[in-house]
Protein backbone atom coordinates (compact mmCIF):
# COMPACT_ATOMS: atom_id res chain seq x y z
CA UNK A 1 0.00 0.00 0.00
CA UNK A 2 1.46 3.37 -0.99
CA UNK A 3 1.40 6.17 1.57
CA UNK A 4 1.10 8.72 -1.23
CA UNK A 5 -2.57 9.36 -2.11
CA UNK A 6 -3.46 8.39 -5.66
CA UNK A 7 -3.21 11.32 -8.06
CA UNK A 8 -1.63 13.55 -5.40
CA UNK A 9 0.71 16.16 -6.84
CA UNK A 10 2.61 18.37 -4.43
CA UNK A 11 4.82 17.98 -1.38
CA UNK A 12 4.81 15.53 1.51
CA UNK A 13 6.83 16.56 4.54
CA UNK A 14 7.55 14.44 7.64
CA UNK A 15 8.60 16.26 10.80
CA UNK A 16 8.72 15.90 14.56
CA UNK A 17 8.63 18.54 17.23
CA UNK A 18 11.60 16.99 18.97
CA UNK A 19 13.97 18.05 16.17
CA UNK A 20 15.67 21.46 16.05
CA UNK A 21 15.88 21.47 12.28
CA UNK A 22 12.14 20.77 12.00
CA UNK A 23 11.51 23.74 14.30
CA UNK A 24 13.87 25.86 12.24
CA UNK A 25 11.96 25.25 9.01
CA UNK A 26 8.46 26.03 10.32
CA UNK A 27 8.40 29.29 8.25
CA UNK A 28 9.45 27.29 5.19
CA UNK A 29 6.54 24.92 5.63
CA UNK A 30 4.16 27.85 6.05
CA UNK A 31 5.51 29.36 2.82
CA UNK A 32 5.17 26.07 0.95
CA UNK A 33 1.63 25.42 2.20
CA UNK A 34 0.54 28.83 1.00
CA UNK A 35 1.69 28.17 -2.55
CA UNK A 36 1.32 24.46 -3.23
CA UNK A 37 -0.51 21.31 -2.13
CA UNK A 38 1.24 20.10 0.99
CA UNK A 39 0.72 17.06 3.26
CA UNK A 40 2.62 17.62 6.50
CA UNK A 41 2.89 14.68 8.90
CA UNK A 42 4.00 15.06 12.50
CA UNK A 43 5.54 12.06 14.25
CA UNK A 44 5.17 13.27 17.82
CA UNK A 45 2.72 16.16 18.10
CA UNK A 46 -0.17 16.99 15.75
CA UNK A 47 -0.09 20.60 17.08
CA UNK A 48 3.31 20.96 15.46
CA UNK A 49 4.18 22.72 13.17
CA UNK A 50 1.98 25.69 14.05
CA UNK A 51 0.41 28.04 11.53
CA UNK A 52 -0.46 25.44 8.87
CA UNK A 53 -3.95 24.78 7.51
CA UNK A 54 -3.64 21.11 8.51
CA UNK A 55 -1.13 18.80 10.12
CA UNK A 56 -1.62 15.07 9.81
CA UNK A 57 -1.12 12.90 12.87
CA UNK A 58 1.51 10.19 12.30
CA UNK A 59 2.15 9.23 15.90
CA UNK A 60 1.38 5.64 14.89
CA UNK A 61 4.26 6.07 12.39
CA UNK A 62 2.44 4.21 9.64
CA UNK A 63 3.11 6.83 6.99
CA UNK A 64 6.71 7.24 8.14
CA UNK A 65 7.16 3.47 7.97
CA UNK A 66 5.53 3.12 4.56
CA UNK A 67 7.53 6.00 3.11
CA UNK A 68 10.70 4.46 4.55
CA UNK A 69 11.63 7.69 6.38
CA UNK A 70 15.00 7.59 8.14
CA UNK A 71 15.64 11.29 8.79
CA UNK A 72 13.34 14.20 9.66
CA UNK A 73 12.59 16.56 8.11
CA UNK A 74 12.10 14.66 4.85
CA UNK A 75 10.40 16.35 1.91
CA UNK A 76 9.04 14.32 -0.98
CA UNK A 77 7.85 15.78 -4.25
CA UNK A 78 5.07 13.67 -5.74
CA UNK A 79 3.50 13.82 -9.15
CA UNK A 80 0.20 12.06 -9.83
CA UNK A 81 0.62 9.82 -6.77
CA UNK A 82 4.21 8.86 -7.55
CA UNK A 83 7.34 9.96 -5.70
CA UNK A 84 9.64 11.97 -7.96
CA UNK A 85 12.29 13.25 -5.58
CA UNK A 86 13.11 13.47 -1.87
CA UNK A 87 15.44 15.43 0.38
CA UNK A 88 16.21 15.10 4.07
CA UNK A 89 17.57 17.61 6.54
CA UNK A 90 17.51 21.29 5.57
CA UNK A 91 19.55 22.49 2.61
CA UNK A 92 18.22 25.82 1.35
CA UNK A 93 19.45 25.54 -2.23
CA UNK A 94 18.22 21.98 -2.66
CA UNK A 95 14.81 22.74 -1.14
CA UNK A 96 14.48 25.80 -3.42
CA UNK A 97 15.31 23.69 -6.46
CA UNK A 98 12.95 20.90 -5.45
CA UNK A 99 10.05 23.29 -4.80
CA UNK A 100 10.90 25.59 -7.70
CA UNK A 101 10.54 28.42 -5.21
CA UNK A 102 13.61 30.71 -5.27
CA UNK A 103 12.49 32.72 -2.24
CA UNK A 104 12.08 29.73 0.06
CA UNK A 105 13.67 29.99 3.49
CA UNK A 106 15.07 33.46 3.04
CA UNK A 107 16.85 34.50 6.20
CA UNK A 108 17.39 30.93 7.42
CA UNK A 109 20.73 29.19 7.76
CA UNK A 110 21.74 27.62 4.48
CA UNK A 111 22.10 24.16 6.01
CA UNK A 112 21.03 22.21 9.06
CA UNK A 113 21.22 18.42 9.39
CA UNK A 114 18.09 16.52 10.33
CA UNK A 115 17.41 14.09 13.19
CA UNK A 116 16.62 10.38 13.19
CA UNK A 117 13.05 9.51 12.28
CA UNK A 118 11.05 8.04 15.17
CA UNK A 119 10.20 5.11 12.92
CA UNK A 120 13.81 3.90 13.03
CA UNK A 121 14.23 4.09 16.80
CA UNK A 122 15.86 0.86 18.01
CA UNK A 123 13.44 -2.05 17.80
CA UNK A 124 10.73 -0.06 16.04
CA UNK A 125 11.23 -1.13 12.40
CA UNK A 126 10.43 -4.75 13.33
CA UNK A 127 7.41 -3.69 15.37
CA UNK A 128 6.11 -1.50 12.55
CA UNK A 129 6.70 -4.23 9.97
CA UNK A 130 4.69 -6.60 12.08
CA UNK A 131 1.98 -4.03 12.91
CA UNK A 132 1.42 -2.99 9.32
CA UNK A 133 1.37 -6.52 8.02
CA UNK A 134 4.47 -6.62 5.89
CA UNK A 135 6.14 -9.61 7.52
CA UNK A 136 6.29 -12.97 5.84
CA UNK A 137 5.95 -14.88 9.09
CA UNK A 138 3.74 -17.91 8.94
CA UNK A 139 4.29 -19.64 12.29
CA UNK A 140 1.24 -20.31 14.42
CA UNK A 141 0.68 -17.52 16.96
CA UNK A 142 0.22 -18.64 20.55
CA UNK A 143 -1.77 -16.27 22.69
CA UNK A 144 -0.35 -15.25 26.07
CA UNK A 145 -3.19 -14.51 28.46
CA UNK A 146 -2.90 -11.18 30.35
CA UNK A 147 -1.98 -12.78 33.67
CA UNK A 148 0.05 -15.61 32.18
CA UNK A 149 3.83 -15.73 32.66
CA UNK A 150 5.34 -16.16 29.20
CA UNK A 151 8.38 -18.01 30.58
CA UNK A 152 6.17 -20.51 32.34
CA UNK A 153 4.12 -20.90 29.16
CA UNK A 154 7.27 -21.97 27.30
CA UNK A 155 8.01 -24.59 29.96
CA UNK A 156 4.43 -25.83 30.03
CA UNK A 157 4.34 -26.26 26.28
CA UNK A 158 7.49 -28.36 26.39
CA UNK A 159 9.61 -25.91 24.38
CA UNK A 160 12.44 -25.70 26.91
CA UNK A 161 15.50 -27.86 27.44
CA UNK A 162 15.08 -27.28 31.16
CA UNK A 163 16.52 -23.76 31.24
CA UNK A 164 14.47 -20.61 30.68
CA UNK A 165 14.07 -19.56 27.04
CA UNK A 166 13.73 -16.06 25.62
CA UNK A 167 10.03 -15.75 24.69
CA UNK A 168 9.82 -15.81 20.86
CA UNK A 169 7.75 -12.69 20.23
CA UNK A 170 7.13 -11.51 16.67
CA UNK A 171 9.45 -8.51 16.97
CA UNK A 172 12.30 -10.63 18.36
CA UNK A 173 11.87 -13.15 15.57
CA UNK A 174 11.84 -10.38 12.95
CA UNK A 175 15.03 -8.91 14.39
CA UNK A 176 16.57 -12.40 14.31
CA UNK A 177 15.57 -12.85 10.66
CA UNK A 178 17.43 -9.65 9.82
CA UNK A 179 20.58 -11.69 10.51
CA UNK A 180 20.20 -13.58 7.22
CA UNK A 181 19.37 -12.74 3.63
CA UNK A 182 17.50 -16.03 3.31
CA UNK A 183 13.71 -15.88 3.03
CA UNK A 184 11.73 -16.91 6.14
CA UNK A 185 9.87 -19.57 4.19
CA UNK A 186 12.97 -21.22 2.73
CA UNK A 187 13.33 -24.83 3.87
CA UNK A 188 16.64 -25.56 5.59
CA UNK A 189 16.20 -29.30 6.00
CA UNK A 190 14.09 -32.14 7.27
CA UNK A 191 14.60 -32.63 10.99
CA UNK A 192 14.53 -36.06 12.62
CA UNK A 193 13.00 -37.85 14.39
CA UNK A 194 9.62 -36.59 13.09
CA UNK A 195 11.16 -35.72 9.69
CA UNK A 196 9.54 -32.31 9.85
CA UNK A 197 10.38 -29.68 7.24
CA UNK A 198 12.17 -26.81 8.93
CA UNK A 199 12.00 -23.26 7.55
CA UNK A 200 14.41 -20.40 8.17
CA UNK A 201 11.62 -18.86 10.26
CA UNK A 202 11.42 -21.90 12.57
CA UNK A 203 15.20 -21.85 13.02
CA UNK A 204 14.97 -18.12 13.85
CA UNK A 205 12.26 -18.75 16.45
CA UNK A 206 14.37 -21.39 18.18
CA UNK A 207 17.48 -19.18 17.91
CA UNK A 208 15.58 -16.41 19.72
CA UNK A 209 14.61 -18.87 22.45
CA UNK A 210 18.22 -20.05 22.79
CA UNK A 211 19.39 -16.46 23.34
CA UNK A 212 21.19 -15.91 20.01
CA UNK A 213 21.95 -12.52 18.50
CA UNK A 214 20.80 -12.03 14.89
CA UNK A 215 24.42 -12.12 13.74
CA UNK A 216 24.65 -15.75 14.90
CA UNK A 217 21.75 -16.90 12.73
CA UNK A 218 23.84 -17.84 9.66
CA UNK A 219 25.91 -20.15 11.88
CA UNK A 220 22.81 -21.73 13.41
CA UNK A 221 21.32 -22.24 9.93
CA UNK A 222 24.53 -23.93 8.76
CA UNK A 223 24.49 -26.17 11.83
CA UNK A 224 20.88 -27.19 11.18
CA UNK A 225 21.70 -27.84 7.53
CA UNK A 226 24.65 -30.02 8.53
CA UNK A 227 22.57 -31.97 11.05
CA UNK A 228 20.15 -32.87 8.26
CA UNK A 229 22.82 -34.46 6.07
CA UNK A 230 22.25 -38.19 5.77
CA UNK A 231 25.85 -39.11 6.62
CA UNK A 232 25.63 -37.30 9.96
CA UNK A 233 22.75 -39.60 10.94
CA UNK A 234 21.12 -37.21 13.43
CA UNK A 235 18.27 -39.65 13.98
CA UNK A 236 20.65 -42.27 15.32
CA UNK A 237 22.70 -39.72 17.29
CA UNK A 238 19.48 -38.74 19.04
CA UNK A 239 18.05 -42.22 19.50
CA UNK A 240 21.18 -43.90 20.84
CA UNK A 241 21.61 -44.94 24.46
CA UNK A 242 25.19 -43.60 24.11
CA UNK A 243 26.45 -40.11 25.06
CA UNK A 244 26.56 -38.55 21.60
CA UNK A 245 25.12 -35.17 20.64
CA UNK A 246 25.94 -32.78 17.78
CA UNK A 247 29.05 -30.76 18.66
CA UNK A 248 29.38 -27.60 16.57
CA UNK A 249 32.90 -26.48 15.62
CA UNK A 250 33.13 -23.11 13.86
CA UNK A 251 36.01 -22.15 11.58
CA UNK A 252 36.81 -19.09 9.49
CA UNK A 253 36.22 -15.34 9.78
CA UNK A 254 32.67 -15.52 11.12
CA UNK A 255 33.89 -16.93 14.42
CA UNK A 256 35.84 -13.72 15.05
CA UNK A 257 33.13 -11.48 13.58
CA UNK A 258 30.49 -12.68 16.02
CA UNK A 259 32.88 -12.82 18.97
CA UNK A 260 33.09 -16.56 19.53
CA UNK A 261 35.45 -17.88 22.15
CA UNK A 262 38.34 -20.07 21.02
CA UNK A 263 40.60 -19.37 23.98
CA UNK A 264 40.25 -19.52 27.80
CA UNK A 265 37.51 -21.90 28.95
CA UNK A 266 36.70 -22.59 25.29
CA UNK A 267 34.69 -25.73 26.08
CA UNK A 268 33.02 -24.10 29.07
CA UNK A 269 30.46 -21.43 29.84
CA UNK A 270 30.49 -17.65 29.56
CA UNK A 271 30.51 -16.75 25.85
CA UNK A 272 27.11 -15.91 24.42
CA UNK A 273 27.79 -17.14 20.87
CA UNK A 274 29.33 -20.44 21.97
CA UNK A 275 26.56 -21.07 24.50
CA UNK A 276 23.57 -20.16 22.38
CA UNK A 277 24.45 -21.47 18.90
CA UNK A 278 24.80 -25.04 20.14
CA UNK A 279 21.66 -24.63 22.20
CA UNK A 280 19.69 -23.31 19.22
CA UNK A 281 20.53 -26.45 17.21
CA UNK A 282 19.37 -28.66 20.09
CA UNK A 283 16.15 -26.64 20.44
CA UNK A 284 15.44 -27.09 16.71
CA UNK A 285 15.86 -30.85 17.12
CA UNK A 286 13.64 -30.79 20.18
CA UNK A 287 10.90 -28.50 18.95
CA UNK A 288 10.82 -28.93 15.17
CA UNK A 289 12.09 -32.51 15.05
CA UNK A 290 10.25 -33.64 18.17
CA UNK A 291 13.38 -35.28 19.65
CA UNK A 292 13.07 -35.27 23.42
CA UNK A 293 14.70 -37.20 26.27
CA UNK A 294 12.55 -40.17 27.16
CA UNK A 295 10.94 -40.00 23.72
CA UNK A 296 13.22 -40.81 20.82
CA UNK A 297 16.24 -39.54 22.80
CA UNK A 298 17.10 -42.76 24.66
CA UNK A 299 20.44 -41.74 26.20
CA UNK A 300 21.29 -43.83 29.27
CA UNK A 301 23.28 -41.06 30.96
CA UNK A 302 23.61 -38.21 28.46
CA UNK A 303 26.13 -35.48 29.20
CA UNK A 304 26.05 -31.73 29.96
CA UNK A 305 26.96 -30.83 26.35
CA UNK A 306 23.53 -31.97 25.23
CA UNK A 307 22.18 -28.55 26.28
CA UNK A 308 24.41 -27.28 23.49
CA UNK A 309 28.07 -27.77 22.62
CA UNK A 310 29.68 -25.24 20.31
CA UNK A 311 33.10 -23.63 20.09
CA UNK A 312 35.50 -22.03 17.62
CA UNK A 313 38.93 -23.27 16.62
CA UNK A 314 41.83 -21.02 17.72
CA UNK A 315 43.13 -20.33 14.22
CA UNK A 316 44.96 -17.02 14.66
CA UNK A 317 48.12 -18.45 16.22
CA UNK A 318 47.83 -22.12 15.31
CA UNK A 319 50.88 -23.80 13.84
CA UNK A 320 48.67 -26.30 12.03
CA UNK A 321 46.07 -26.02 9.30
CA UNK A 322 42.59 -25.80 10.76
CA UNK A 323 39.95 -28.50 10.82
CA UNK A 324 38.05 -26.89 7.94
CA UNK A 325 41.17 -26.57 5.80
CA UNK A 326 41.95 -30.25 6.42
CA UNK A 327 38.42 -30.96 5.30
CA UNK A 328 38.86 -29.14 1.99
CA UNK A 329 37.80 -25.54 2.65
CA UNK A 330 39.94 -22.42 2.32
CA UNK A 331 41.00 -20.46 5.43
CA UNK A 332 38.82 -17.48 4.47
CA UNK A 333 35.67 -19.58 4.23
CA UNK A 334 33.46 -19.72 7.29
CA UNK A 335 32.32 -23.25 8.06
CA UNK A 336 30.47 -25.31 10.59
CA UNK A 337 31.58 -28.87 11.32
CA UNK A 338 29.35 -31.22 13.26
CA UNK A 339 30.88 -34.02 15.25
CA UNK A 340 28.68 -36.53 17.06
CA UNK A 341 30.41 -36.49 20.40
CA UNK A 342 30.10 -37.06 24.12
CA UNK A 343 32.02 -35.92 27.12
CA UNK A 344 35.37 -34.20 27.49
CA UNK A 345 38.35 -36.29 28.63
CA UNK A 346 41.46 -34.58 29.95
CA UNK A 347 45.08 -35.24 29.06
CA UNK A 348 47.44 -33.65 31.55
CA UNK A 349 51.07 -33.66 30.51
CA UNK A 350 53.21 -30.92 32.04
CA UNK A 351 56.57 -32.58 31.50
CA UNK A 352 56.80 -33.43 27.79
CA UNK A 353 59.01 -31.00 25.87
CA UNK A 354 59.67 -33.39 22.99
CA UNK A 355 56.93 -34.10 20.43
CA UNK A 356 57.53 -37.86 20.61
CA UNK A 357 56.86 -37.89 24.35
CA UNK A 358 53.77 -35.72 24.10
CA UNK A 359 52.43 -37.84 21.24
CA UNK A 360 52.78 -40.94 23.41
CA UNK A 361 50.92 -39.19 26.27
CA UNK A 362 48.06 -38.20 24.01
CA UNK A 363 47.91 -41.69 22.52
CA UNK A 364 47.80 -43.31 25.96
CA UNK A 365 44.69 -41.35 26.84
CA UNK A 366 43.07 -41.89 23.44
CA UNK A 367 43.60 -45.67 23.71
CA UNK A 368 41.53 -45.68 26.89
CA UNK A 369 38.51 -43.88 25.43
CA UNK A 370 35.23 -45.80 25.39
CA UNK A 371 37.00 -48.94 26.62
CA UNK A 372 40.70 -49.73 26.59
CA UNK A 373 39.95 -53.14 25.06
CA UNK A 374 37.64 -51.91 22.29
CA UNK A 375 39.21 -50.66 19.06
CA UNK A 376 37.62 -49.40 15.86
CA UNK A 377 34.57 -48.11 17.74
CA UNK A 378 33.84 -44.45 18.43
CA UNK A 379 35.65 -41.63 16.62
CA UNK A 380 37.34 -38.92 18.64
CA UNK A 381 37.95 -35.18 18.47
CA UNK A 382 41.31 -34.12 19.90
CA UNK A 383 41.55 -30.54 21.18
CA UNK A 384 45.21 -29.47 21.38
CA UNK A 385 45.88 -26.54 23.71
CA UNK A 386 48.31 -23.71 22.85
CA UNK A 387 50.95 -24.91 25.32
CA UNK A 388 50.86 -28.42 23.91
CA UNK A 389 50.88 -26.96 20.39
CA UNK A 390 54.07 -25.08 21.33
CA UNK A 391 55.90 -28.40 21.77
CA UNK A 392 55.06 -29.38 18.21
CA UNK A 393 55.78 -25.92 16.82
CA UNK A 394 59.22 -25.73 18.42
CA UNK A 395 60.07 -29.14 16.95
CA UNK A 396 58.66 -28.06 13.54
CA UNK A 397 56.20 -30.94 13.50
CA UNK A 398 53.47 -30.46 10.91
CA UNK A 399 49.95 -31.71 11.55
CA UNK A 400 50.58 -34.51 9.04
CA UNK A 401 53.70 -35.61 10.87
CA UNK A 402 51.87 -35.59 14.20
CA UNK A 403 49.02 -37.61 12.71
CA UNK A 404 51.46 -40.18 11.38
CA UNK A 405 53.33 -40.54 14.69
CA UNK A 406 50.06 -40.68 16.63
CA UNK A 407 48.61 -43.33 14.30
CA UNK A 408 51.60 -45.59 15.05
CA UNK A 409 50.98 -45.22 18.78
CA UNK A 410 47.31 -46.11 18.35
CA UNK A 411 47.92 -49.59 16.93
CA UNK A 412 47.83 -52.61 19.19
CA UNK A 413 48.39 -56.35 18.90
CA UNK A 414 44.80 -57.51 18.95
CA UNK A 415 45.72 -60.59 20.99
CA UNK A 416 46.14 -58.30 24.02
CA UNK A 417 42.61 -56.96 23.96
CA UNK A 418 40.49 -60.00 23.15
CA UNK A 419 37.31 -60.56 25.12
CA UNK A 420 38.16 -62.22 28.43
CA UNK A 421 41.80 -61.09 28.46
CA UNK A 422 43.01 -59.49 31.67
CA UNK A 423 40.05 -60.84 33.57
CA UNK A 424 37.64 -58.54 31.70
CA UNK A 425 34.84 -60.11 29.68
CA UNK A 426 34.62 -57.09 27.39
CA UNK A 427 37.06 -56.93 24.49
CA UNK A 428 37.53 -57.59 20.81
CA UNK A 429 35.92 -60.74 19.34
CA UNK A 430 38.03 -63.86 18.73
CA UNK A 431 37.94 -63.25 14.96
CA UNK A 432 40.13 -60.14 15.48
CA UNK A 433 42.97 -62.33 16.88
CA UNK A 434 46.32 -62.60 15.17
CA UNK A 435 46.83 -59.10 13.83
CA UNK A 436 47.22 -55.44 14.58
CA UNK A 437 44.30 -53.10 14.95
CA UNK A 438 43.93 -49.33 15.14
CA UNK A 439 42.03 -47.51 17.84
CA UNK A 440 40.20 -45.39 15.25
CA UNK A 441 38.83 -46.07 11.81
CA UNK A 442 40.51 -44.35 8.87
CA UNK A 443 39.47 -40.65 9.09
CA UNK A 444 38.00 -41.20 12.54
CA UNK A 445 40.20 -38.74 14.45
CA UNK A 446 39.59 -34.98 14.12
CA UNK A 447 42.17 -32.53 15.52
CA UNK A 448 41.64 -28.86 16.42
CA UNK A 449 43.61 -26.18 18.26
CA UNK A 450 41.79 -24.32 21.03
CA UNK A 451 42.09 -23.13 24.59
CA UNK A 452 43.71 -20.51 26.78
CA UNK A 453 47.38 -19.62 26.60
CA UNK A 454 48.37 -21.25 29.87
CA UNK A 455 48.04 -24.89 30.84
CA UNK A 456 49.60 -28.06 29.48
CA UNK A 457 46.25 -29.77 29.20
CA UNK A 458 44.58 -31.03 26.08
CA UNK A 459 41.28 -32.79 25.68
CA UNK A 460 39.67 -35.57 23.75
CA UNK A 461 35.98 -35.64 23.01
CA UNK A 462 34.57 -39.09 22.61
CA UNK A 463 32.57 -39.83 19.47
CA UNK A 464 29.51 -42.00 19.06
CA UNK A 465 29.81 -45.77 19.43
CA UNK A 466 28.35 -46.09 15.92
CA UNK A 467 30.91 -43.98 14.06
CA UNK A 468 31.65 -44.19 10.36
CA UNK A 469 29.48 -45.37 7.51
CA UNK A 470 27.40 -47.60 9.80
CA UNK A 471 26.43 -44.58 11.91
CA UNK A 472 27.68 -40.99 11.90
CA UNK A 473 30.59 -39.30 10.15
CA UNK A 474 31.59 -35.67 10.79
CA UNK A 475 30.15 -33.21 8.27
CA UNK A 476 31.25 -29.70 7.26
CA UNK A 477 29.16 -27.06 5.49
CA UNK A 478 29.98 -23.47 4.60
CA UNK A 479 28.15 -20.63 6.35
CA UNK A 480 25.94 -18.58 4.00
CA UNK A 481 25.01 -14.98 4.72
Amino acid at each position, binding site marked *: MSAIPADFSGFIVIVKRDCETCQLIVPVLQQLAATADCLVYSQDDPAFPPGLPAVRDDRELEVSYRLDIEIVPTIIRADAGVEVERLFGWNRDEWRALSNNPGLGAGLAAFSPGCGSKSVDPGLPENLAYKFGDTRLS*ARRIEVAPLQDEHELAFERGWSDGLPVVPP*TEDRVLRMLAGTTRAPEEIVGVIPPDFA*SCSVEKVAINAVMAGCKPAYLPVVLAAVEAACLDEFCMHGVLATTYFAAPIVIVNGPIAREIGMNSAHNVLGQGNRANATIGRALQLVIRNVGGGKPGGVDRATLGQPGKIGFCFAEREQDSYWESLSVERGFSPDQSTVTLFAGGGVHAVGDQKSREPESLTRSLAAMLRGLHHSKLYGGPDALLVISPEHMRVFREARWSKARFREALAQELVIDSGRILAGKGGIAEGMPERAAGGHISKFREGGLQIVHAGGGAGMWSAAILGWAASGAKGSVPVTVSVKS
Partner: protein
Amino acid sequence: MKHLLDPTSEAQPAQRQMLPRPQSLAGKRVALLDISKPRGDVFLDQLEAKLGSLGVATLRYSKPTFARVAPAELRQRITSECDLVIEALAD
Protein backbone atom coordinates in the same frame (compact mmCIF):
# COMPACT_ATOMS: atom_id res chain seq x y z
CA MET B 1 -2.87 -9.33 23.56
CA LYS B 2 0.68 -10.64 23.48
CA HIS B 3 1.60 -13.49 21.20
CA LEU B 4 4.50 -15.90 20.89
CA LEU B 5 5.43 -17.72 17.73
CA ASP B 6 5.20 -21.50 17.82
CA PRO B 7 8.71 -23.03 17.64
CA THR B 8 7.43 -26.52 16.78
CA SER B 9 6.68 -28.16 13.46
CA GLU B 10 2.94 -27.64 14.15
CA ALA B 11 2.51 -31.09 12.75
CA GLN B 12 2.51 -33.11 15.90
CA PRO B 13 1.09 -36.42 14.80
CA ALA B 14 -2.09 -37.51 16.46
CA GLN B 15 -1.49 -40.26 18.98
CA ARG B 16 -0.49 -43.31 17.01
CA GLN B 17 -3.08 -46.02 17.28
CA MET B 18 -2.02 -49.61 17.87
CA LEU B 19 -3.19 -51.99 15.16
CA PRO B 20 -5.69 -54.54 16.42
CA ARG B 21 -3.89 -57.61 17.85
CA PRO B 22 -4.40 -60.79 15.80
CA GLN B 23 -6.72 -63.28 17.52
CA SER B 24 -4.62 -66.19 16.33
CA LEU B 25 -1.43 -66.83 14.37
CA ALA B 26 -3.09 -69.52 12.26
CA GLY B 27 -2.38 -68.88 8.59
CA LYS B 28 -0.29 -65.77 9.36
CA ARG B 29 3.28 -65.22 8.26
CA VAL B 30 5.58 -63.67 10.88
CA ALA B 31 8.62 -61.53 10.04
CA LEU B 32 11.54 -61.87 12.44
CA LEU B 33 13.59 -58.70 12.14
CA ASP B 34 17.16 -58.59 13.43
CA ILE B 35 18.28 -54.96 13.86
CA SER B 36 21.94 -56.08 13.77
CA LYS B 37 22.70 -55.71 17.44
CA PRO B 38 24.82 -58.42 19.08
CA ARG B 39 22.88 -61.59 20.06
CA GLY B 40 19.68 -60.51 18.35
CA ASP B 41 20.04 -63.68 16.28
CA VAL B 42 20.10 -65.84 19.44
CA PHE B 43 16.75 -64.44 20.51
CA LEU B 44 15.23 -64.78 17.05
CA ASP B 45 16.52 -68.39 16.67
CA GLN B 46 14.54 -69.30 19.80
CA LEU B 47 11.41 -67.59 18.52
CA GLU B 48 11.74 -69.18 15.11
CA ALA B 49 11.92 -72.65 16.70
CA LYS B 50 8.97 -71.95 19.00
CA LEU B 51 6.78 -70.56 16.22
CA GLY B 52 7.83 -73.38 13.90
CA SER B 53 6.69 -75.96 16.45
CA LEU B 54 3.29 -74.25 16.48
CA GLY B 55 3.13 -74.50 12.70
CA VAL B 56 3.53 -70.74 12.15
CA ALA B 57 5.45 -69.65 9.05
CA THR B 58 8.32 -67.22 9.66
CA LEU B 59 10.70 -65.24 7.49
CA ARG B 60 13.98 -63.72 8.67
CA TYR B 61 15.10 -60.15 7.89
CA SER B 62 17.85 -57.89 9.12
CA LYS B 63 18.58 -54.18 9.08
CA PRO B 64 22.00 -53.17 7.66
CA THR B 65 22.82 -51.25 10.85
CA PHE B 66 21.01 -50.72 14.12
CA ALA B 67 22.11 -47.06 14.09
CA ARG B 68 19.79 -46.09 11.25
CA VAL B 69 16.11 -46.51 10.54
CA ALA B 70 15.22 -49.48 8.34
CA PRO B 71 15.53 -48.68 4.61
CA ALA B 72 12.21 -48.11 2.84
CA GLU B 73 12.85 -51.09 0.56
CA LEU B 74 13.18 -53.43 3.57
CA ARG B 75 10.02 -52.05 5.20
CA GLN B 76 8.08 -52.51 1.98
CA ARG B 77 9.38 -56.06 1.51
CA ILE B 78 8.33 -57.04 5.04
CA THR B 79 4.90 -55.42 4.54
CA SER B 80 4.29 -57.26 1.31
CA GLU B 81 5.56 -60.65 2.51
CA CYS B 82 4.32 -60.87 6.10
CA ASP B 83 1.33 -60.17 8.32
CA LEU B 84 3.19 -59.18 11.48
CA VAL B 85 6.68 -58.42 12.71
CA ILE B 86 8.69 -59.32 15.78
CA GLU B 87 11.76 -57.11 16.15
CA ALA B 88 14.75 -58.10 18.26
CA LEU B 89 16.56 -55.26 20.03
CA ALA B 90 19.03 -57.40 22.04
CA ASP B 91 22.56 -56.35 23.25
